[in-house]
C-alpha cells in the first residue's frame, strides 16, 4: 500500500498475490487485498470478476493455488470455514447454508459445541432474539427456515456469524435480497459493528450502495484488481463503473411512450395463505393492460412471492378471482396458466426456474415441450430441440459451451438470460417477473431491462415484482405498493414519489388503515 492512509488503521486482513484456478478459468490472478480494522471495504465487480472466489479463499472455503493471507499481521491458513470462524472471520454467502426444516435457533446453534446434549430451546431463543434485537435484525427465533422469506433467511445467516463472535464479516452481495428499507437497516447494523471495531467486507456490484456504505473500495475485473483500496470519497459512480465493466454504463433506460391496450390480467379481491398458513394476500385487486408494466414495490415478505405464485397457478387462493383475457386461472394448475400464455420469471432461479442438472436445451424447452415442432404426441424430436435451443442461445447470448451443458454451470446472468429466453419464446400475454435482476451484474441487468421493455413494446402485460425501487420506477408505467398482503398505494410511475413509496412499503401510515384500492383508469 503506497497511500499514507494505510497507517491509520491496523490491517485486519492482508491478502497478497492470491491465485485461484478452476478448470478452464483463472478466477483470481495475483490479487492483493487489504482490510483495515474498523472499516467497511467494498469489493466491487461484475458477476464472474472473482470477488466471491477471493472471499471464499479468505473464509477458508477454497485453498489458494498461490499467495498469502495474513490476519492481524500473522500468517493465517484456514483449512475450513470452521478455522476461519474460530479466528473471528465469518462469511455470509449468497446461497444460504440453512436447514429448511429446523428453526432459526437450531440453525444458529448447528455445529457449535454448546449446547452439548439437551437443547434448552427457550433460553437460546431468548438469547438469539436479544442478539437480533441489538443489531436490528428482526427475525423470529422459533420460525422454521422454510417459512422465512429470502431476506429473513439472510438475517439468520448474519446472526449465525455474529453469534459465533465474528469480528470480520464478509457479506457476499447482501443487499441483493433486501428491500431498500431492509438495506438501510443492514447498513445501520454494519455501521454500529464497525464503530465497535469490527471490519466488514462488502461484496457488491451496486455502485450506489457501495458509495453509500463503504469507506474504501477495491474493484475487480476478470480476476484482477483494477482499483485497490481507493477511499470512497475520491471516487465517482461513473468512474467506478468504468473500472468495473471497462465501459460506460448507460444509466438511463430508453423506453417507448406508454400506450396501454385492453386489460389482460384482472385480479379481484384475491386472498391466499402463505406457507405458514397465515393470510399472505388480503384482498388484492389489480389490473394490468397490454403494453403496460405494473411495478409492485414492497419489502420482502409482504406477499409479493405469494402474489406471483397465485398468478402462475403455483398457489391456491382462498377467495377472489384471477383472470387472464377473461379466462379464470385462479385456483387452477400451473399448466392452465401456461396455456393462457402466462410467463413467469421466478424469484428462485436455481430451485424453481431451472433444473440444475439438466442441460441448457432441456431447460429451454420446459414451457414448450408439449408443442410442435419440439414434440409430437409422444416423443420429443431431439433435432428440433437442439435447433430451438441453439436459436435461443444465439439470440439471447446465453454464454454456455453448448446446449448440452448442465444449467448449474451457468453464471447467474446467463441463467437469467436462459429463463427470459424461454419465457419470451412462449409468447407471453402476461409476464410475471419476480426480482428479475437480483444478484446480476450491470451488463446482465441492462439485458433483462431491455428484454422486459421489448415485451412491453410487443404488447405483453407485465407485472414486475421487485424490491429495487429504482428499478421499479425506471421500468414501470404504474407502481403498486404492497404491505402486509395488501396494496397500500397505486401510482402512475411518472407522478410517483420515492419518499412516499418508501413510507408506504414500510407501513408508514398504512399499517392499520386499509387503503381503498381504486381500480385504475389509466389512459
Amino acid at each position, binding site marked *: 500500500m503506497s497511500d499514507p492512509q494505510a497507517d491509520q488503521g491496523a490491517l485486519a486482513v492482508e491478502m497478497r498475490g492470491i491465485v485461484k484456478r478452476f478448470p478452464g478459468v483463472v478466477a483470481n490472478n495475483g490479487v492483493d487485498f487489504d482490510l483495515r480494522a474498523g472499516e467497511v471495504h467494498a469489493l466491487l465487480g461484475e458477476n464472474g470478476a472473482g470477488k466471491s472466489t477471493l472471499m471464499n479463499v479468505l473464509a477458508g472455503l477454497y485453498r489458494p493455488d498461490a499467495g498469502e493471507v495474513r490476519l492481524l499481521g*500473522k500468517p493465517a491458513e484456514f483449512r475450513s470455514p470452521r*478455522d476461519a470462524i474460530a479466528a473471528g472471520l465469518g462469511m455470509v454467502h449468497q446461497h444460504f447454508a440453512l436447514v429448511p426444516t429446523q428453526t432459526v435457533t437450531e440453525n444458529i446453534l448447528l455445529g457449535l459445541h454448546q449446547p452439548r446434549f439437551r437443547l434448552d430451546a427457550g433460553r437460546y431463543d431468548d438469547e438469539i432474539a436479544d442478539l437480533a434485537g441489538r443489531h436490528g435484525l428482526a427475525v423470529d427465533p422459533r420460525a422454521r427456515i422454510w417459512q422465512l422469506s429470502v431476506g429473513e433467511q439472510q438475517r439468520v445467516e448474519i446472526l449465525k456469524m455474529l453469534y459465533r463472535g465474528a469480528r470480520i464479516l464478509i457479506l457476499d452481495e447482501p443487499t441483493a435480497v433486501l428491500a431498500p428499507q431492509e438495506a438501510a437497516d443492514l447498513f445501520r447494523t454494519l455501521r454500529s459493528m464497525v464503530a465497535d471495531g469490527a471490519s466488514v467486507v462488502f461484496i457488491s456490484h451496486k455502485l450506489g450502495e457501495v458509495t453509500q456504505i463503504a469507506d474504501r473500495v477495491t474493484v475487480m475485473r476478470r480476476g484482477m484488481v483494477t482499483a485497490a483500496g481507493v477511499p470512497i470519497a475520491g471516487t465517482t459512480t461513473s468512474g467506478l463503473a468504468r473500472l468495473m465493466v471497462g465501459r460506460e454504463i448507460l444509466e438511463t433506460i430508453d423506453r417507448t411512450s406508454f400506450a396501454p391496450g385492453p386489460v389482460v390480467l384482472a385480479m379481484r379481491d384475491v386472498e391466499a395463505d402463505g406457507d405458514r398458513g397465515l393470510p399472505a394476500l388480503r384482498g388484492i385487486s389489480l389490473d394490468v393492460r397490454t403494453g403496460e408494466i405494473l411495478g409492485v414495490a414492497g419489502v420482502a415478505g409482504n406477499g409479493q412471492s405469494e402474489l406471483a405464485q397465485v398468478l402462475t397457478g403455483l398457489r391456491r387462493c382462498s377467495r377472489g378471482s384471477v383472470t387472464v383475457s377473461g379466462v379464470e386461472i385462479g385456483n387452477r394448475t400451473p399448466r392452465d396458466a401456461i396455456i393462457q400464455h402466462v410467463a413467469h420469471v421466478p424469484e428462485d432461479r436455481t430451485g424453481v426456474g431451472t433444473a*440444475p442438472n*439438466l442441460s441448457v436445451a*432441456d431447460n429451454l424447452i420446459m414451457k414448450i415441450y408439449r408443442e410442435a415442432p419440439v414434440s409430437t404426441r*409422444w*416423443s420429443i424430436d431431439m433435432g428440433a430441440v437442439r435447433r430451438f435451443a441453439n436459436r435461443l442461445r444465439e439470440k439471447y447470448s446465453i454464454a454456455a459451451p453448448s446446449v448440452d451443458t448442465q444449467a448449474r454451470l451457468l453464471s447467474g446472468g446467463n441463467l437469467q438470460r436462459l429463463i427470459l429466453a424461454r419465457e419470451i419464446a412462449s409468447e407471453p400475454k402476461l409476464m410475471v417477473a419476480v426480482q428479475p435482476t437480483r444478484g446480476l451484474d450491470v451488463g446482465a441487468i441492462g439485458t433483462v431491462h431491455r428484454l422486459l421493455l421489448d415485451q412491453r413494446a410487443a404488447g405483453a402485460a407485465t407485472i414486475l415484482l421487485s424490491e429495487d425501487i429504482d428499478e421499479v420506477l425506471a421500468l414501470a408505467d404504474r407502481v403498486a405498493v404492497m404491505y402486509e398482503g395488501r396494496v397500500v398505494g397505486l401510482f402512475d410511475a411518472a407522478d410517483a414519489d420515492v419518499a412516499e413509496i418508501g413510507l408506504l412499503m414500510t407501513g408508514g401510515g398504512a399499517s392499520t388503515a386499509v387503503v381503498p384500492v381504486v381500480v385504475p383508469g389509466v389512459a
Partner: protein
Amino acid sequence: MTTTSPVRLPARGSRLPWSLRLERRLAVPRWLPVATTAGAIIVALAISGLILWIAGGDPVAIFVHIIGSSFGSLGVLSDTLVKATPLILTGLACALAFRMRLWNIGAEGQFLMGAWGASAVVLIPIVPAGTPSIVTIPLMMVAAMAAGAVYGAIPGFLKAVRGVNEIIVTLMLNYVALFWLSYWVFGPWSEGGFQLSRPFPPEAWLPRLSDAAGAVPDFAGLTVHLGLAFGLVAAVIIRFFIFRSRRGYEIRLIGDSPKAARYAGIDVTRNTIVVFAISGALAGLAGMSEVAGVVHRLQQAISPGYGFTAIIVAYIAKLHPYGVIVASIAFGALILAGREIQPSGIPAMIQGIILFSLIASEVFLRYQIRLERREA
C-alpha cells in the same frame, strides 16, 4: 463480542504430514463416471480378494473359477444370461423409478405378483388347456404386467396423494406379496399338498434356444429363453422413453427438481402413479419370464432376491437402461457362481463390497480431492 480475537490456527489431532481436502467439482468430465465405476469395481475385487486370502483361499484362483463357471462355455454363458434376464427387467423397473427419485424397493414384491398373475392365466385357468402359445404367452405377459402395475401403483398412489413414504410401503408390500403367493401355492393351486403348483402346460412355456436344437445342433441344452428378448427390448424402449419421450422428459425434470417441474406445469402427482405403475409392470414381467421361462410352475422359491439385487444393478448402471443390461449380466454371473463356490456366501459378499465401493466412489464425482502437506 470481545474487541480482539486471537488468530487461532488449526491444531488438529492428526499427526500425519499431509491432509486430504475436498473441493466441490464444478463440472464432471464425461469419462469420469465410467472411470470411477470401473475403479470402484477393481477396488471391490481387491478387497474381496484380500478377504478370501485371509480366509485361506487363493483369490486369483477363485476369481478365475468364477469367470470360468459363468462365461467359460456356451452352456454356462447361457445359464448366466438366464440369471441375468429377471435382473434386467427388475433393474429397469428400479432405474426408471429412481430416475424420478421414487425409491421403489418393492420390485421383489411386484416380481412375485407378476409371477402370480402369469400363473393365474394357466392355473385358474383363464384360457383352457391346449390354447396355442401365441395366445397363452401374450395373455400371461399382459396379466403379469397388469398385476405388477397395480401392485406398483399402490405405493405410487399413497405417495402422490397422501405423501406416504414409498420406501416403507414398497418394502412392506414385498412381504404381503410373498404371503399372497404362499397362500396360493399352499392352498388353491397346491399340487397334492406340496407347496408348488402343477406344472404349466407346454404352451405356457417360453421358447428356449434348445428348442431349436433340431436346426442348430449347438443350441442343444441352452436354457436361454425368450424372456431375455423381453429384457433387451424393454431396455431399448425404456431408453427411448426416458430420453426421447415427453413423459420421459417430465420424469427427468421431476427427478432433478420437483419445484421446477411444477413450475413447468407438470402434474407430479399423476407422474408419480404412472411411473410406479410402469416400474411395477416391468418387475411383473420379470416374474412372468421366470415362471414361464425357467420354473414352469408357480412355487414359493422363485426368486433369490432378484428384486433386491435389482436395486444394486440399477445403481451400478447409473440408472441407464443399457447399463442395466451389462450390470445384470455381471450379477447373473455372480449368482451363478454361487452354485460353484463354497461357501455360497462369497458371491453375495462380493456383491455387497461392490455396492459399498460404488457408493463410496460417488465422492469422486462430486468433489476434487487434494492432498496437502501439513506445515510444520
